[in-house]
Each structure stands twice: as structure tokens, then as C-alpha cells.
């Protein structure tokens, strides 16, 4: 059963990184079966028809696994539904007559490119500083040659579920990227393949993270905003591993 609801969309418009932005209001009639991004698509068609600039927002897979979409909807990253990315959110979550405030993810490390699109390349920078893992080149090894304990594999998979959307940074009152970084560090640190470079990877990823983002004060907002429900436990593991890494890397570099 689909209904048509009328909502007021209050959306952030900003021409570029250096221009000042502001809100624009558009009334919208929409089916409750529409996804949130389809609602924006339809709005953009109307804007196009009227000869106005369409609203810039990012999306790619629209099935909740690429991490490209992501906006603040009524003050919540990815909107009101738990464990759901913006693209998987549907208009049935809203009621007739609602005002929907749509803003870009905000953080100093996420400058606005235009309207709702922000530059999340600092997250790539963190990944990049993680470097490589050592694997033997040559003929492909047999499957299951490296045994991985089941619990470690499960937990590594939980961490690897992170899609890197940046909702944790957007929801964090401190704009800290701890949940993202800890998930990325965590899934490698749990697997045997990640062990040789474990300590150098942890140290450099945390330090690049801290050059862009704030300091974690353990509010727990990131976990609530995360579309993949990454656990706060990974932040604890990261904090433990970072100081361990500081000690170990010194020993590994020949100083005791």
C-alpha cells in the first residue's frame, strides 16, 4: 500500500568550497514507496524543468554497500532508521506534513564540494597511510593454507563491514574518525595476514587520522550513526594497539 505524502524539504545549497551556503525550501509530493534518494532525484527533475540548478548529492550503488551516499537528515547521519545508509532509507519513515532538513556531513576534514557533496578524501588518506601487507608472490597458494580462528575471522569481518561513508565523523560531536580508523586497523590486526606490518600500520594510520580529525571522548554517537553498526570495541582495541605500537616500533627500529 503506497500513500502519497507531502513533505517540506529544507536543503543546504552551497556553490563551492569557499562560498557561503544557505537553506532552500521545496514542497514535495512523494510516494511512501520511494527511496530517499529517489525523492531527491524527482526534486532535481522538477528543478531542471524550472531551469534551476539541481541539488548536488552523491550516490553510487544505492544498495547500502559503497559508502558514497550520506547526508544529515533531520540532524542524524543517514536519517532516522538505524543501521541504514541514506540510499536504503525510504519515504515511509516520514509522515505527511513533515519538514525534512537535509545537510552535508560536517567536519573540518570534510570540506563541502557543492550542496550536499563533501570531500571525504582524508579517509582515503588514512587508508593510504596503512600501506601494504606482505604476501608471498608467485603461484597462488592453496585455499585455507593459512588457518584463521573462527572467532577472529568473524570479528575481522564485522570490522571489514565498514563502508567508509564518514557518518561516524559527521555524528561525532568532536568530529573524530576513531570508529572508521579502528575498523580499518581492526580487521587487519585480527588476521594472520595482517601481522607483519601490524604495528607500523597502526601507528601511521592513527597519526594521519589525528592530522584531520578530532579527539575521541567516548560518547558513542558514531556507533549509533553507523549504517553497518561497527562496534565501539574496535576503538578500544585501536587505543590499546596504538600505545603498544609506539613501544614495539621503537624496539623494531633497534632502540631499546
Amino acid at each position, binding site marked *: 500500500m503506497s500513500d502519497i505524502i507531502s513533505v517540506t524539504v529544507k536543503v543546504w545549497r552551497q556553490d563551492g568550497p569557499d562560498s557561503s551556503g544557505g537553506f532552500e525550501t521545496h514542497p514535495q509530493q512523494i510516494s511512501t514507496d520511494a527511496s530517499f534518494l529517489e525523492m531527491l532525484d524527482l526534486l532535481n527533475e522538477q528543478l531542471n524543468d524550472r531551469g534551476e540548478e539541481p541539488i548536488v548529492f552523491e550516490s553510487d550503488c544505492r544498495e547500502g554497500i559503497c559508502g558514497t551516499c550520506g547526508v544529515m537528515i533531520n540532524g542524524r547521519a543517514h536519517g532516522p532508521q538505524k543501521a541504514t545508509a541514506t540510499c536504503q532509507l525510504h519515504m515511509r519513515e516520514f509522515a505527511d506534513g513533515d519538514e525534512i532538513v537535509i545537510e552535508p556531513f560536517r567536519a*573540518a576534514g570534510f570540506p563541502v564540494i557543492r550542496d550536499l557533496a563533501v570531500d571525504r578524501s582524508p579517509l582515503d588518506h588514512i587508508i593510504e597511510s596503512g600501506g601494504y601487507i606482505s604476501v608471498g608472490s608467485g603461484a597462488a597458494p592453496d585455499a585455507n593454507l593459512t588457518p584463521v580462528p573462527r572467532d577472529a575471522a568473524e570479528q575481522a569481518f564485522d570490522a571489514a563491514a565498514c563502508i567508509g561513508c564518514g557518518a561516524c565523523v559527521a555524528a561525532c560531536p568532536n568530529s573524530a574518525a576513531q570508529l572508521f580508523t579502528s575498523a580499518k586497523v581492526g580487521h587487519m590486526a585480527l588476521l594472520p595476514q595482517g601481522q607483519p606490518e601490524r604495528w607500523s600500520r597502526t601507528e601511521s594510520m592513527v597519526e594521519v587520522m*589525528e592530522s584531520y580529525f578530532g579527539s575521541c571522548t567516548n*560518547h558513542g554517537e558514531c556507533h549509533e550513526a553507523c549504517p553497518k553498526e561497527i562496534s565501539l570495541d574496535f576503538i578500544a582495541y585501536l*587505543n590499546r594497539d596504538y600505545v603498544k605500537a609506539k613501544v614495539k616500533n621503537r624496539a623494531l627500529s633497534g632502540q631499546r
Partner: protein
Amino acid sequence: MAQSTRERYRVDPVRTRRRAWPFPLNIYQSAVGRKWVMALTGIGLVGFALIHMVGNLHVYEGPARMYEYAETLRTIGGGLVPKSFVLWLMRLGLTGMFALHLHAAITLKDMSRHSSDDAGLMSGAKKYAGGRDHIAATYASRTMRWTGPIIALYLLFHLADLTWGWWLGPDFVRGDPYHNVATSLSSLPVAILYVVANVALALHIFHGAWSIFQSLGINNPRYNHLRRALAAGIAGLILIGNLSFPILAQTGLISEDNRACPVNDSDGLVCLAEEAEGH
């Protein structure tokens, strides 16, 4: 297609790293290391708050026992060290922990403020026009940067009140804590101040004690659910103990009506010492 790194990554770092300090001081240069320092000093400070509260319960045993407790603190270490030596070591340790805790808190708050474009100067939290209702953050965690300064100011008042005796003036008798506590807390404004400050302290400890586990990475899925309860337990214990002093002083339980010894710093203290001996 040679693109420079600068073109591919347009976002400049919010802060640049300074030259690394020698190990292990370089741990303090990172925010994660600073949170470790906050957690470790937090353990010391919560431990102090708990022991201080338990020790002060001696006030319910009367002036002589309170005098004996204060004397015991000064004579820790027995005849091996000069009088008050160990006490001063502990005071220095506490002051150091306070200084580190404060420095880390202020610098980390600053770091977070610079990580959000439109963060308020004091609250540090960024603003969303859509209204930002916190889902997981507790009242205690959001008010850490308010309860912290309240506790620091209260601490200065508390030292001036019962250690240095600035407000009580001639009424302050050095070495007779029972008299000083009873006199100070019998004033209603002072009692209210102690109640307010201790509520702030309990809120601070409620978030802090849980946060310690997270910052140090003390994590065991089997026992994780106990961490909130432990934090609430410690904060609650300290709150109840500390609130009892101003409240019971106001209701008259801590009073000097039945006092046997005179109030002065010469024969009054001798009398208290003799009474304590007699127990």
C-alpha cells in the same frame, strides 16, 4: 597522467605534526596517548576521591577519632621518614596528576574544536540546523567540559576552606578537622556549594570511569556489560558519601554540642590526643 598528490587530495590537514619528542614522551604528542594519560591520571584521581570519602567517614566517630585520622595521615611512614613526608609526596603526586589531566583535557578539547568548522568556543560541539539530538551520548559525557572546571574551582575553594582556612579566619583551628568541618558546613551557602560540586563530581566520574576502559583498551566481551554498572557504582558511592557531610551537618548530626575538649590549637589538641588514646 602524472597527477601530483596535491591535486588528488585537495583537503589540507587541519593540523601539522611537530617534531617528535623522544620516547616515551612522543606518546603524549598524539591524542590517543593523551587519552591514555587522562585515563591513568583519572584512575589515580578517582582512587583519591574514593579513599578521601571513606577516610572522612571518621567524622561520624567524633572529634577525637577525626583528629587521630588526620594525625595518622601525617605520620605515614612511621619514624623512618620526617613527619608529613609521605603525605607531601602524595600531595605532589596528586597535584601532578591534576595538572596532566587538565592539560590533556584542555588541549584535546582544542583539537576537537578545530576539527569542526562551526564549533562553539565553549561547547565545542558542531551545529546542525536539523537539530542534533544525541542518541548515545549521556548527559554526563556531554557535560564533561563543564563538570571538569566546576570540580577544579570547587577544589580550590575546598583547599582554601579546610586546608588553608582562609574563609573561617580565627574560627579555623589547624589540626582539628572535626571543628573546621562542622563550622564550615553549618553555613547553608557553603553546604549548598558542596552539594552542587559533588553532584558535578559524580557526573564527571560516571562518564570518566567508563571512559577509562575504552581509552586504555581494557576490553573483554565477557565483562564489558559490567563497565557501566561499575562506573555508576563508584560514582554513586562517592556521591552518597560526600553528600552525607553537608546534609548531616545541616541537620545537626555533625555538631560540637557534645564536645568534651576545648576548641583551640594548644590544649584542645592535647585533649583530643588523650581522648583518642583512651579508645
